[in-house]
């Protein structure tokens, strides 16, 4: 029965139709067979009785003149009829007068008394009185085989099959066509079952009224054992589950309501519930329709991301600590090389020829460059390691100070500069000063070969964001290399052309990122460059 219940409704309907048709056809066949059997018996009885009557007419004289031999002679030709298995003529007192038995068949009864015309198992017994006028002078007994019912059934079986099978073949497509119309409401059910999300309907009392296959999978329980039970039973936090559908009744719906389904085998499934009221055609609330989305995988993924980020931050911090200590420890030997080179140049100047002095000078320049590099690297790592203040910073004032310092370092240069008004941002003064030192320093440096150098620092405001920029008319750069600009140790110009180590812009970018801003650079070779950075206002 369980198997039958699991069949699709269309198949069930088709089966029912076929079954009904088959039963109807079989019933018709049985009735036809029964009628045919009745007709056959009637005909047989008529035939055999007629034969008995003919025999009886012939037996009159034989009986009257007590001539059993002639009676016997009349009986013998019955052998020509294979249906007749026995025949007999009895005198009125019942004694056997003459008899005939077909070989292999039982003899006729010895006494003719108490015999009645009737049907027996597969045979018919005919009895006909032998009349002489009003007087009965004897009886004729005739026994004939009839075709067994089973044989007739088997003979009819073929015909029944010939009728039944084409009839069913004709019924089947008609039935299926009709059933499509009937079974169409099943479409809604198939949609519900097709959902990969567990779907549940809950009565106002919190009792489960229907579930789909996905719910069966999530809980590990059968449909029968789920329907009629309390919805909250299947969650790790039943109270929270109860609260969820109470909220649906209060508000009409809930979305992304987090719950955890407990499978019978103990497995937990994190889900987000979307649930709403469902109503009948009169808008009477029937219950809650709840759909759960399995978010176990997403939750796991988020956890993974959190863990990875954590590990990455730890690794970065360790790396910065390492590079800081390395840079710091490199300064001592470097100072020794520079100091002793200086001592050598001063104390043994007379013993060195010009070649030697030039070598020493190169050593000193190299060590100084390395010193700068270490300073810059320390700055870079400090930028990421140091604590940050959030205060109002007047970038215009800071820029003016930086220009003064630059002018002091190279008093001979004539550089026109312009600083825009109201350049105020929120951030760490010391770090933002470093940004301006690097950007304005670059502009100062790369306009060195320009006969009329000009540097501009201003802001462009757009939709509530402010983008500061430093513009110069220096050597500029090819935009093809724009991506490389902010990478540490990336240089677009040789150190011989313009001194530097490629850490400046990397430091700028890191500081701006720490403030939550972005950097970019625009340039054209020979026509200058502009560097932009945004800061929260």
């Amino acid at each position: 029965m369980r198997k039958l219940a699991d069949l699709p409704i269309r198949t069930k309907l088709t089966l029912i139709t076929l079954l009904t048709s088959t039963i109807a056809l079989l019933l018709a066949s049985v009735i036809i067979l029964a009628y045919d059997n009745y007709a056959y018996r009637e005909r047989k009885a008529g035939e055999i009785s007629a034969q008995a009557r003919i025999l009886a007419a012939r037996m009159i004289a034989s009986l009257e003149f007590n001539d059993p031999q002639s009676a016997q002679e009349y009986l013998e030709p019955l052998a020509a009829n294979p249906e007749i298995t026995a025949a007999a003529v009895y005198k009125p007192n019942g004694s056997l007068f003459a008899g005939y038995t077909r070989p292999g068949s039982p003899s006729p009864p010895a006494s003719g008394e108490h015999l009645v015309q009737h049907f027996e198992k597969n045979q018919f017994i005919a009895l006909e009185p032998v009349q002489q006028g009003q007087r009965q002078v004897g009886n004729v007994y005739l026994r004939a085989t009839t075709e067994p019912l089973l044989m007739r059934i088997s003979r009819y079986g073929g015909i029944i099959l010939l009728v039944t099978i084409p009839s069913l073949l004709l019924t089947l497509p008609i039935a299926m066509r009709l059933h499509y119309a009937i079974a169409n409401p099943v479409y809604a059910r198939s949609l519900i079952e097709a959902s990969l999300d567990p779907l549940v309907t809950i009565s106002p009392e919190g009792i489960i009224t229907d579930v789909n296959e996905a719910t069966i999978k999530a809980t590990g329980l059968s449909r029968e054992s789920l329907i009629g039970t309390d919805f909250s039973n299947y969650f790790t936090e039943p109270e929270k589950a109860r609260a969820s559908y109470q909220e649906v009744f209060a508000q009409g719906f809930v979305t992304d309501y987090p719950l955890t389904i407990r499978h019978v085998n103990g497995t937990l499934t994190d889900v987000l519930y979307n649930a709403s009221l469902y109503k009948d055609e009169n808008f009477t609330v029937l219950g809650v329709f709840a759909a759960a989305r399995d978010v176990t995988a997403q939750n796991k993924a988020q956890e993974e991301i959190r863990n990875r980020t954590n590990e990455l931050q730890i690794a970065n911090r360790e790396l910065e600590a390492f590079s800081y200590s390395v840079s710091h420890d490199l300064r001592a030997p470097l100072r020794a090389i520079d100091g002793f080179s200086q001592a050598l140049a001063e104390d043994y100047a007379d013993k060195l020829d010009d070649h030697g002095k030039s070598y020493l000078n190169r050593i000193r320049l190299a060590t100084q460059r390395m010193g700068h590099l270490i300073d810059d690297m320390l700055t870079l790592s400090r930028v990421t390691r140091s604590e940050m203040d959030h205060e109002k910073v007047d970038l215009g004032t800071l820029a003016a100070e930086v220009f003064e310092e630059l002018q002091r370092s190279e008093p001979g240069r004539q550089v026109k500069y312009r600083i825009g008004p109201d350049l105020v941002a929120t951030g760490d003064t010391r770090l933002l000063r470093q940004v301006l030192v690097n950007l304005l320093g670059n502009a100062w440096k790369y306009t060195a070969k320009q006969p009329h150098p000009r540097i501009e620092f201003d802001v462009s405001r757009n939709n509530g964001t402010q983008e500061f920029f430093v513009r110069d008319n220096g050597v500029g750069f090819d935009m093809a290399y724009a991506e490389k600009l902010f990478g540490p140790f990336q240089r677009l110009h040789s150190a011989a052309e313009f001194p530097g180590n490629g850490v400046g812009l990397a430091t700028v970018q890191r500081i701006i990122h720490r403030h939550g801003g972005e950097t970019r650079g625009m340039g054209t070779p020979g026509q200058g460059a502009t560097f932009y950075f945004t800061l929260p206002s």
Partner: protein
Amino acid sequence: MHNSSLPKATFAVASMALALTTAYAQIDEYAVKAAFLYKFGLFVEWPSSAFASPSSPVNLCIVGEDPFGETLDRVVADEQIKGRSIVVRRLKTVERNPACHILYVGGSEQQSPAEILETVRGSPVLTVADAPHNKSETAIINFVIEDNRVRFNIDDAAAAQNGLAISSKLSSLALNVKLRATNGDE
């Protein structure tokens, strides 16, 4: 044994019935003949002129010696032939066109069987006689004893002479049938 399906049993039953009949015949040959005598009438058609009216009885005459005695009267007492009652008449002699329908030729010194037969020749009378002593004495139906059984021969030609029709049912039981000349279909 009666219900046995063996063909042998059938033969046994048949021969037993035969034996009974034979024994009966031996015991009372004339009782059988008496019954036969009136039963012949059942299979014979007389011309309508042979009876005075539709209700007239069939006269069964014994001419000459009577071998039946009371047996015959007993046998025919309640019998009828085609709705007619049977009257037994015992005669010493007969004449032409006697008031007889069935006539048993007993014969006597007054009128021999041959004379009786000669007298009624042409009259509508069914003559019955025991086995004849010679061929000229044959009646229409002559009793014969064969295998201790009462049988008979039929002379249909003689019946025709007397204006009688004998049913084929009866002829078929006869040992020998002398066919009538004109329409010899039997």
